[in-house]
């Protein structure tokens, strides 16, 4: 055991230091991964652009200028214009915002739903567990992208329906993950001790189980966000994404594909930014994985 300090004041500092050093150790592990640091910088920038984008965009996302259609980059249109005369720079700024909103809300919704159901299944066991896990199996077996298409077709191509569709197809992974982690602890001594203290199942889940797996769940969430970004773009590629004139990376990339020789800037800017962003998110998730869960994969 640690040396027990004789006086109160320095000891309090010491206790805080040990706590801080746990966070600092995680951060130093994260920092040791240069890709994760670069990724984090880009992700941060991406978020910043997503937040301030609508205010700094020189043009509205629906604003067209037919006289300037398919124009190469100029000072007024720094990334050129597309076939309808949309300013590509403004389009990208708005796309960042919409893509982030969709990916984050969809991931958080899937995370919440999956976490609650997975905790319930793992802790309850028996029939509840079996039934819920068969539903999870169904979602794993059924092509998620296809189900997304069906849901978007049914409910429309707005922000809300897309978030809903992504959440519906995304929760099963979180549920299966946390259920497995809970199974590992459910019959352990910590839970037995908690129950012996009179902890109700809900209380056990909230105060004992979830806090012990939160780092694994955050890592899963960090991988889930770029996943939802990709699917959201992929929906646009087949024309089932955000309804134009709402801009999206998938729309821009799909539309530019046909004109790649004539107007290459229409492809390079959105595709480049989107690719770098996805990579950055994955690097961040990878870095988090190493920092929070150094002993092994999730």
């Amino acid at each position, binding site marked *: 055991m640690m040396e027990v300090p*004789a006086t109160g004041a320095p000891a*309090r500092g010491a*206790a805080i230091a040990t*706590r801080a050093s746990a966070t600092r150790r995680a951060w130093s592990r994260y920092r040791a991964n240069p890709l994760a640091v670069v990724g984090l910088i880009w992700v941060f920038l991406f978020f910043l652009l997503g937040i301030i984008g609508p205010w700094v965009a020189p043009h509205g996302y629906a604003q067209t200028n037919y006289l300037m259609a398919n124009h190469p980059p100029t000072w007024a249109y720094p990334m050129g214009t597309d076939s309808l005369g949309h300013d590509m720079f403004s389009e990208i700024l708005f796309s960042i915002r919409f893509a982030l909103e969709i990916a984050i809300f969809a991931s958080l919704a899937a995370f919440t739903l999956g976490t609650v159901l997975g905790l319930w299944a793992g802790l309850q066991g028996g029939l509840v567990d079996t039934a819920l896990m068969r539903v999870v199996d169904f979602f794993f077996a059924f092509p998620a992208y296809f189900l997304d298409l069906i849901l978007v077709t049914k409910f429309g191509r707005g922000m809300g329906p897309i978030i809903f569709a992504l959440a519906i197809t995304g929760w099963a992974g979180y549920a299966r993950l946390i259920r497995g982690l809970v199974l590992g602890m459910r*019959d352990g001594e*910590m839970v037995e001790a908690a129950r012996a*203290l*009179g902890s109700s199942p809900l209380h056990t889940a909230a105060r*004992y189980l979830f806090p012990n797996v939160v780092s694994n769940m955050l890592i899963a969430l960090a991988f889930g966000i770029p996943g939802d970004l990709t699917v959201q773009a992929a929906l646009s590629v087949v024309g089932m994404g955000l309804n134009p004139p709402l801009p999206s990376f998938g729309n821009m990339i799909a539309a530019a594909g046909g004109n790649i020789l004539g107007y290459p800037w229409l492809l390079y800017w959105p595709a480049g930014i989107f690719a770098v962003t996805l990579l950055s998110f994955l690097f961040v998730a990878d870095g988090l994985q190493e920092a929070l869960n150094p002993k092994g994969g999730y």
Partner: protein
Amino acid sequence: MAHPPLLTVDALHTHFQRGSETIYAVNGVSFSVQPGEAVGVVGESGSGKSVTMLSLLGLVRGRVTVRVARAQFKTWDLTRLSRRQLEDVRGRDIGVVFQDPMTSLNPVMRVGDQVMEAMLAHQYAPPRAAFQRTLDLFREVGIPDGATRFRSYPHEFSGGMRQRVMLAVAIACEPELLIADEPTTALDVTVQMQILSVLQALRARRRMSVVMITHDFGVATNFCDRIVVLYAGRVVESAAVSDFLARPAHPYTRGLKGSILEIGSRGRQLNPIAGAPPTLTAAPSACTFAPRCPYALPRCDQELPLLRPFNPGHEVACHRAEEVVDHVG
């Protein structure tokens, strides 16, 4: 005794279903605990010590059937309480300390919070009072500098210190009964003594009843007033410590005593009990100890010996107890 017992258990059966097999873990255990009394429940691994106590608290999990003729704690019939009521009794009226403090504490919660948690969950005290009381409890169980240690996490504590935290958690709501399930088994010997003396002091100060589950005779006889010996899920002997030491009346108890090595007994022959405990896959219909018993008669293979009064305060489940107790061997 003058007072009604604090805890009375009559004919407790706990059976586990494993595949197509039934494991008869506890087969009709009866005992009682008087207010302020310390009862030692001893027996080897698999004798049903822990399962007995966990069954009473509704803590056994899996495919299990618990049957009991009577399980009365204070004025409550434990079998009639709803899940919600039982949760309220656990931790508030009955405290539990488990064997391994390394794995029983929540690794991501500050130790002080874990003590407070017990009080807040049972509305035993408002937060401010619970905080003060946590510091008092830390002092009482021998955690120095409680205000600082309050903020520590379990991994910053040694095994002994963690067990002190577990004790503080278990007694936070001033339970009338403390169940200690092998509280010192995972600790090294010097720390065992410290924990036992803390436990002894806690008990003396509040006249709390303790059920001490252990396989360590030394711990049981030093700490307890009365010993209950379990074998294959049945009580084979129940006696005051003095009787238990001087006049063990069950062959199994005698066998256990003969297989203990004591300091200063150089040259003495150890007499281990021959054979192995039964497999518990069938309900007992005869004496479960008979196959290993040097005193066994044909009758022992046919007739289940019931727990019967032998001397005042001394009960035994053996057909030949009178002959066994006088046998010098």
